């Protein structure tokens, strides 16, 4: 913690520092959970010391990761074991496993914490599972290679992207039926709503764009954001992970083998800045206070720590092989 204050001291206003100091005890316990796809482990990083404090053995090929709303449970998709594993975020012990359908990659929890919506890549299906009793709630047929999963803040809409169909499918969670299909660019990977549900962002990895969609206006695409980085080949710019700040002002987009995270102004939808991170940056995650955002860098086997206010990369921390996803809990 001390080190981080020192790092940002030059940039933070005095008042800001006071606020940070006041939240210090809670901050000190923030931990990042990182799935390592090719190690079959999960690294636990203490965000105070910026050290890996535990490496948890998981099922095979852990990818998608999320936390329960109260931060007590960590959900991990063990893709090659066809199950979801649930860990205690304090003891790091496996609490239980949930059914997932075949080859789970990404999932999203309903804002209430139940059910868990899982994309089954090999099965053209989204599976909804009750996390309390492990019962199958629904199986929803979608396009080819379902991947990205986003849920609206009010929980009414679930959005799944299908990588080969190149669509975002909007599902009404009351009926579990597809109500809209939005054609986006090639290989859509991630769907993310902003916090007031006025924008839906969908990244297209091979298309190289992020579509910003208006859920209130018939799910129309407002704009496709393109990316240009001097000296980086266009083929290498592959948007994947997306995170939007709670105040709705900034979006962070991980650009894969371009090794950059783009910062986008959510009002103008213009790219403001590119931050150099590790190799093949994949997914992103905020700390609970949103002062930091972490990127998983699959080919350099580390996570980059980005100061959200200063818009700077402050540190990288080595984790396991092919870090895939990250979630942080207080």
């Amino acid at each position, binding site marked *: 913690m001390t080190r981080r204050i020192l790092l940002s001291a030059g940039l933070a206003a005095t008042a800001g520092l006071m606020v940070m100091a006041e939240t210090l005890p809670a901050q000190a316990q923030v931990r990042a959970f990182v799935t390592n796809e090719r190690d079959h482990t999960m690294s636990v990083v203490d965000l105070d010391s910026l050290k890996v404090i535990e490496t948890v053995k998981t099922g095979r090929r852990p990818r998608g990761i999320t936390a329960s709303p109260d931060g007590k449970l960590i959900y991990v998709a063990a893709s090659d074991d066809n199950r979801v594993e649930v860990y205690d975020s304090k003891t790091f012990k496996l609490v239980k496993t949930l059914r997932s359908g075949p080859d789970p990659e990404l999932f999203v929890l309903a804002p209430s914490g139940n059910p868990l919506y899982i994309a089954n890549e090999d099965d053209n299906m989204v599976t909804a599972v009750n996390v309390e009793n492990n019962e199958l709630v629904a199986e929803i047929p979608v396009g080819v290679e379902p991947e990205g999963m986003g849920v609206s803040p009010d929980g009414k809409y679930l959005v799944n992207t299908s990588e080969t169909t190149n669509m975002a499918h909007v599902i009404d969670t009351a009926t579990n039926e597809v109500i809209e299909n939005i054609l986006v660019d090639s290989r859509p990977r991630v769907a993310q709503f902003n916090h007031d549900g006025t924008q839906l962002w969908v990244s297209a990895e091979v298309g190289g764009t992020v579509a910003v969609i208006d859920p209130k206006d018939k799910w129309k695409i407002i704009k496709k954001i393109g990316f240009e980085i001097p000296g980086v080949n*266009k083929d290498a710019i592959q948007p994947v992970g997306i995170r939007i700040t709670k105040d709705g002002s900034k979006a962070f987009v991980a650009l894969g083998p371009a090794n950059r995270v783009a910062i986008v102004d959510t009002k103008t939808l213009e790219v403001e800045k590119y931050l150099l991170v590790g190799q093949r940056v994949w997914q992103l995650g905020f700390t609970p206070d949103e002062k930091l955002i972490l990127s998983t860098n699959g080919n350099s086997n580390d996570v980059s720590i980005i100061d959200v206010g200063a818009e700077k990369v402050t540190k990288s921390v080595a984790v396991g092989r092919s870090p895939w996803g990250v979630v942080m809990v207080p």
Partner: protein
Amino acid sequence: MKRMVGAAAAKAVLAVAILAMAGMPLPASAQQETPAPAPTAPKPAAAATQSFRIGLVRQMPELPPWIAPLTAPPENLGVAGAELGIRDALASGRFLKLDYTLATEIVPTDGDPLPAAQQLADAGNGFILLDVPAAQLIRIADALKDKDVLLINVGAPDDSLRQQDCRANVLHVAPNRAMLTDALAQFLMTKRWRNWFLFTGRTEGDKLYAESVRNSAKKFGAKIVAEKVWDYGPDARATAQSEVPRATQVGEYDILVVADEQGEFGDILPYNTWLARPTAGTQGLMSLAWHPTMENWGASQLQNRFFKQHQRMMQPLDFQMWEGVFAVASAGMKTRSSEVGKIRAQLLAPDYDLPVFKGVAASFRPWDHQLRQPILLTHATNTVTLSPQQAYLHQRTPLDTLGFDQPESRCKFN
């Protein structure tokens, strides 16, 4: 390479292909030879169902003199990939009321594929995948020149089809020999294995492949330090241990590059050479469009889907036919119209990209209609790398370092 594209008795294949089609969970329209719906009413796009009728002509290649058990070609080789392409297209297309059908014609080795292609065109198939020899492909292209049909070459690797013999109504999904040998050359140069011993087989294809190897060596600065033509007969398996060491005493070299598209002797070279040197080319480290060991960039999902449908691994020709169908289907998602002209324009549009599970998108070169895509370098049990290699840069896309770039193109449409 050709070895995997090899042959089986034509009759048996025909029967199995028909059975496979009948057993496919496609809408009934896929199996019927109903005449094409008149391609005239695309006014309110997406309102009415748009039907994409895809034909496929495969002429069985000549049987090689022997086939190793591991590389025996499945009877539905290639066609199986087109069938998966149709299934994928239907899974995506149902959201936009797009329908896709496949009509397959298998022609025996000594048969004539032209009437089969003409029949498919007359039956209203606006898109026809062709796996036929180069000379037949030109005949078909010229015969159908004035028809509203787009031909997609999924099999023939001949450079001439992309150069002086190019045709405006043909797109090439199969990589040509220049792409394959350039991909290999880039990797060998990256490894600093610059001195090559080129060992060429007896067939016309082998000679063309060897010529392509020489061109790639020149292009990327490698040196062919020795050349030989295989003259130990079509089946030297029993005597390989004594004959290959003698055949490979050519002085120093870094790697043996073999040109043997039928698979007559390439696989008996490794571990039998006089010097301890690796083998690459059509055998050993092979340059291919696809291989069952390809896993990255979502490739394992395509492999899994293929395995589920066909209970076997996906081979290069399967992949090339899948790509052919997928190219039409993905363009159709954008046009939402099955009009051949619109699909052709979309396929050749500057912003068209085809995600083919190789890390970067494939697209068609406007100057010769060749699909530019990464090429695998793989041995029997592992994909070693994909070319283009990192060090090879290009002002447009690194993919244009493989095969014929615009300045080298001798293709003139019309």
